[in-house]
């Protein structure tokens, strides 16, 4: 009796009556939240007909951190730190978006040196994030060595970040008003070394994957996302560009000095996994170009706004200057009060359009901080992509839209 019950509850979860008395049975599997390739704690409820996906339903919220709400309880100065934790593979990109939003609220402009440094760091961060994406998405398709090669190069970038801020990942190095500290001596040389090394390594990845027949078979024409659907669903970043829409915030709504640099936007045509892959691969090239230009034009001078109400005074002054001590105390206890108003600032994070919507009521804390997270919007395209695909394609699709669950659930 019990055996029979088992037999029916296990293999068949749903069935459909076809004409002619035939019956089609479906199987439901839960992919995630604990699954090797859902890139965190994404849960997908898949209805399968054999290995073909009939229906897919993403279920998010397993990494809910309440970052938006937390920010409302912190001064602007301190809320910066929680933004690091959203897209934890690209903390500096989050810092940049947040800082730009707060600066817009305050109505301040950062000095040139900070502008250039931010561009360099943001592009390095883009490469680092893309490297994690490349490694993990290749790993999802079974190419395990690429993963470790990518992390080898990412290590160099993280070392540069550590050199700047003392922290490898959650740097909070870009802050409203400029940078936490000046770029350290040796920074330029380290970045130049990386610029010299990385194209060769990038070439190796191309050699391993781009024309690899198995890789092409696994990605070309798989999980297509038509351009109209991509736009309709609010996809941005490489997910959108892979479908053939040339939209990059750095070009469309230039911010933070990007209009000064010469770079191109890779755009796909088919909207399949392969095009998204190539778009990101080529983006890394373009990032290198931007870094090169920014590094060549990196000016000297101050790296923070000259306003002790917004940036903390140097430590040595705190112990010798009464004014500085007061500023220091006020900044860390109370913070600054931007005028009431609301701003929306969009940046091109490695994942797509990262928007910060900040509302100030004139107090020292944000009344509301809403984050338009690219991963969240891009994830919506997943059920559409994998409709009718195979189970094996699901991991390819998840890899190709490059989600970070910390950002989806923020």
């Amino acid at each position: 009796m019990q055996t029979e019950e088992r037999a029916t509850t296990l293999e068949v979860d749903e069935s459909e009556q076809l004409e002619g008395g035939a019956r089609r049975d479906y199987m439901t599997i839960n992919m995630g939240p604990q699954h090797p390739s859902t890139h965190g704690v994404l849960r997908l409820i898949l209805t399968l007909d054999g290995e073909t996906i009939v229906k897919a339903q993403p279920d998010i919220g397993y990494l809910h951190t309440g970052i938006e709400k937390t920010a409302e309880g912190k001064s602007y100065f301190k809320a910066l730190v929680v933004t690091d934790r959203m897209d934890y593979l690209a903390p500096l990109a989050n810092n940049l978006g947040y800082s730009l939003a707060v600066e817009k609220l305050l109505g301040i402009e950062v000095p040139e040196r900070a502008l250039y440094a931010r561009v360099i760091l943001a592009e390095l961060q883009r490469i680092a994030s893309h490297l994690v994406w490349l490694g993990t998405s290749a790993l999802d398709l079974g190419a395990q060595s690429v993963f470790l090669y990518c992390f080898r190069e990412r290590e160099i970038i993280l070392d540069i970040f550590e050199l700047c801020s003392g922290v490898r990942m959650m740097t909070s190095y870009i802050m409203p008003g400029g940078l936490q500290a000046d770029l350290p001596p040796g920074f330029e040389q380290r970045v130049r070394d990386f610029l010299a090394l990385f194209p060769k390594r990038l070439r190796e990845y191309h050699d391993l994957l781009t024309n690899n027949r198995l890789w092409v078979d696994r990605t070309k024409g798989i999980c297509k996302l038509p351009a109209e659907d991509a736009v309709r669903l609010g996809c941005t970043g490489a997910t959108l560009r892979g479908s053939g829409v040339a939209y990059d915030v750095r070009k469309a709504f230039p911010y933070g000095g990007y209009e000064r640099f010469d770079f191109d936007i890779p755009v796909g045509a088919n909207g399949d996994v392969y095009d998204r892959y190539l778009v990101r691969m080529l983006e890394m090239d373009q990032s290198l170009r931007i870094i090169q230009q920014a590094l060549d034009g990196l000016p000297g001078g101050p790296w923070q706004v000259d306003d002790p109400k917004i940036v903390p005074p140097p430590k040595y002054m705190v112990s010798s200057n009464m004014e500085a001590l007061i500023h220091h105390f006020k900044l860390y206890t109370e913070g600054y009060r931007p005028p009431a108003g609301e701003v929306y600032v969009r940046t091109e994070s490695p994942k797509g359009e990262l928007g910060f919507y900040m509302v100030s009521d004139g107090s020292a804390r944000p009344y509301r901080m809403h984050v338009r997270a690219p991963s969240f919007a891009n994830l919506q395209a997943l059920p559409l992509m994998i409709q009718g695909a195979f189970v094996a394609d699901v991991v390819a699709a998840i890899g190709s839209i490059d989600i970070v669950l910390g950002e989806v659930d923020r």
Partner: protein
Amino acid sequence: MSDVAWIVVAAVVKSAIAIGALLTIFAYMTLVERRVIARFQRRVGPNRAGPLGLLQPLADGMKMAFKEQIIPTKARRLIFVLSPAISVFVALIAFAVVPLGNTTTWGTSPVAIAWAPFIADLNVGVLYMLAISSLAVYGIVLGGWSSGNHYSLLGALRSAAQMVSYEVSIGLALAGVLMLSGTLSMVGIVHAQVAQGIWFILAQPLAFVLYAIAATAEVNRAPFDLPEAEQELVAGYLTEFSGLRWSLYQMAEYINMITVSSIAATLFFGGWTLGGLEGIPGMPFVWYTIKVAIFLFIFIWVRATLPRIRYDQLMKVGWQALLPLSIINLVFTGLAVALGWPWWASGLFGLGVLLIVAVVLYNRLRLRQAMERQSGEAVPLALPSSVRLVRIAPATASESGDGVVAAPAAPAESVTTS
């Protein structure tokens, strides 16, 4: 004691040695694989337990032995417990006909013959091997099905389809060799190679390539490791197995690798022979080991390099590429043997077919990725036509947001390309 008793003793002793050796090789094969893959990936690999990590297999074994062996509530207990055993059993007995050296020459009595360096010289050795390796699928299918887990079930089904498909190609690929040698006995095939003065790889290059691909699929190794594709199916049919049962499956996989490598070495590379050097006492075993070790290394190498193929593509390769090619090879070899053509006739034919296939595949890849790059600066690399670089003039008005060059809704065509 009678002759029969001595023969039984010999068989038992040799089986015991073979099983012990296989299990040891399995243990060290895991270590070698981890170390070698680590080198490929610029890591160090396990090197803590003992010098060079040589005690690592022992540590792993201990860990596995003391792990809790979970049986899921939804599992069918008896089958769940039995299926790993089936896998290992089948893997072990398949090795029985692999010759590690020549028949004994120090006597013609049944007892003397019984101590030859192989457990049995069946006159249907190759057939036996094929039959036994077909049974291996039962261990996996039953294990996956009885786990009561969807992932396991999917893995098991994949495995069943995969093994059945590739079994056919293996059989047909080997048939070419059998025609040349005129015997099914593994020892006989090596003797035939010595008698004809060639290794059969020279006469049957196409069959060897087909066998190599099909055998990789047969033993579920990368890039054909779909049944246990960890990124898709968690661990496939292995998902619910833990402790010793899990390691039994691993054991079966590695022993199967050794077995298919042995078949390749025996049928295509002259088994224990090496141009007369097998006459030195003790050396046949060394040559055999070296040959098998090279194949095992290639298994690891491939695993470190290639991405995994998809299930339907795997089927396509099996039925639409390997099968027709192996039939072509079979027909031509049959003709060559029937008409008494020399060995290089089928050898050249095989090489020709391989060349044609390679050219076709290469051209197809080129065609698919016909390059037309608009902006030739960044990477000097051939890129597919589908992705291009778009040059957008930087917007002049920023901040206010009216500097939209490519509105989100604009399709790609409206964007100016350089």
